[in-house]
C-alpha cells in the first residue's frame, strides 16, 4: 500500500436531530428476517431518558451474525427481499419509545464466544451516537468468560444481557441516563 499511514483526525459527529423520520427509516427496515422465517424472534425494548421517561425520537441499528455465527457481507438491506439475510437493521422507536426488530438469535462467531448483537443508538438530544452490545442470556459459561462482561461489576454487567421472554423473544431496554444506565462502549481510535 502506498497510501499515507499518517493518522487523520476523525470528523466530529452531531446529533441525528428531530427530523430524520422521513429520511432514514424505510420499508421493512427492522425485519432482518421475515416473521415467518423458522427461528425468527422479536428483539424489543424501550429507550428511556434520565427521568425514566420514554424517548420518542430515537433511532437504533443492529448488526449481527446469522444463526450459525457467520458474519455475512450480503448487499440488499435497503430492498429487503425476505430471503437475503444481511445481518443489519434499523428502526425508529414509536411514540412511547418502544422498538422492535424481527431477527434470529446470532450464533457464536467462534467456539466458546458469547454471542451478541452490536447496537448503535441515535437520538435527538444525543450529540453523538452510542454503541452497546446485546448479549444472549443462555450460554452462561461463555458469558462468564467474556472479556467485556468480566470487566464490569454485576449491576453494570446485567444492563448488557437481554432477557429471554417465555415465547422466545428478547427484551433489551436502553437507559441513556440514571443509576441503572446501560453500559455504552468506546473503542480504540474512536
Amino acid at each position, binding site marked *: 500500500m502506498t497510501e499515507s499511514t499518517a493518522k487523520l483526525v476523525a470528523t466530529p459527529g452531531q446529533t441525528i436531530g428531530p427530523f430524520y423520520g*422521513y429520511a*432514514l427509516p424505510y420499508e421493512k427496515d427492522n425485519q432482518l428476517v421475515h416473521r415467518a422465517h423458522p427461528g425468527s424472534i422479536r428483539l424489543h425494548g424501550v429507550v428511556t431518558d434520565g427521568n425514566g421517561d420514554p424517548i420518542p425520537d430515537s433511532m437504533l441499528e443492529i448488526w449481527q451474525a446469522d444463526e450459525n455465527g457467520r458474519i455475512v457481507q450480503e448487499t440488499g438491506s435497503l430492498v429487503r427481499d425476505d430471503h437475503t439475510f444481511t445481518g*443489519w437493521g434499523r428502526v425508529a422507536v414509536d411514540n412511547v419509545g418502544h422498538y422492535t426488530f424481527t431477527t434470529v438469535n446470532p450464533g457464536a462467531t467462534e467456539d466458546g464466544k458469547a454471542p451478541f448483537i452490536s447496537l*448503535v443508538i441515535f437520538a435527538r438530544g444525543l450529540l453523538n451516537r452510542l454503541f452497546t452490545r446485546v448479549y444472549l442470556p443462555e450460554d452462561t459459561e461463555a458469558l462468564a468468560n467474556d472479556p467485556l462482561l468480566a470487566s464490569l461489576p454485576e449491576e453494570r454487567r446485567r444492563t448488557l444481557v437481554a432477557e429471554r421472554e417465555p415465547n422466545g423473544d428478547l427484551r433489551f431496554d436502553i437507559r441513556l441516563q440514571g443509576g441503572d444506565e446501560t*453500559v455504552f462502549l468506546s473503542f480504540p481510535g474512536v
Partner: protein
Amino acid sequence: MTPEAPEESFENSHTLDPAATADSQDTINQEISDIHAAYRKGVEAGEAEETQPRIDFAPYRSSLLRHPTKDLHHTDPETIELWSPAFGQRDVHILESDLTIQHNGEPLGERIVVRGRVLDGDGRPVRNQLVEIWQANAAGRYIHKRDQHPAPIDPNFTGVGRAITGDDGSYQFTTIKPAPYPWKNHHNAWRPAHIHFSLFGTDFTQRMITQMYFPGDPLFSLDPIYQSITDQKARDRLVATYDHNVTSHEWATGYTWDIVLSGSNRTWMEDEDAH
C-alpha cells in the same frame, strides 16, 4: 420510502411554549463561552485536545436527560464489530444522489453540488459504502410532520438523498442549498444551514451521523449543537469548502467536504501497528 404527509396548517405554529424558550441567546452564549474557556485552559495545562462533541453539553437543552453520566466503557472491538454491513447498487439507484430530480418540477433555491471522499483514520478510502443525507429546503423547512414552522414546503423538494461511495471513497450529491431554521432550544434560536450525513465505514464501530455546514455562516457562534464541539479545529472539520472547480458553468455552485471516520481496527491495521 414514504414521506409522512406534510401538514400545511401554520395556524399558531409559531406560538412557542414560553417555558421551553425562557432562556435568552445571551444566556446560551455565556454558557458556551464558559465551557469553551475551561476547555482551552485545560488544553494549555496539557490536557488532550477534543475532536468530538461533548455528549454532556447543557446549552443544548435536549441533551440534559439524554446523555450517559458514566464514562463510556473502553473495550476492544470483537468479531461482528470489526465488520460493517455491505451495501451496493442493489440498495441505491444512481439517481438517488440528485435531490433536484425527485419530482415533476425543479425545486426552488440555489442549486449546489456537494462532493468529497469518505476516508478512514489511516487515509484509506471507504469503498462501496452507503452515504445518506437529509436536509431542509431553501426556505428552511423539513418535510416532516414535526416541523411546523411557517416556512413553505417545496412540492418539488423532499430533501433526502443516498449514494454509494466509489473505489476512491468519493461521493457526490446535487441538491439545493438549505436555509437556516428556527428551533425551540431557547428564545430566538436558529440553526445554521446544514445537511445531515449518515455514514458507514469498514467496521461497525465507525458508524456515525453528523452535519455538514456552509462556510461563513453567521449563526455558528450562536448554535449550541455546533458549539458542543469545544475545539475550533474540530468544529472547522464540519464546514465544507466552497470549490470553484466543482462549480459548473451556468448550472450549480460547488462545495467539497471530506469525511474522516475513526480508525479501522480490522486486520489490515496489523502491518501498520509495528510501532
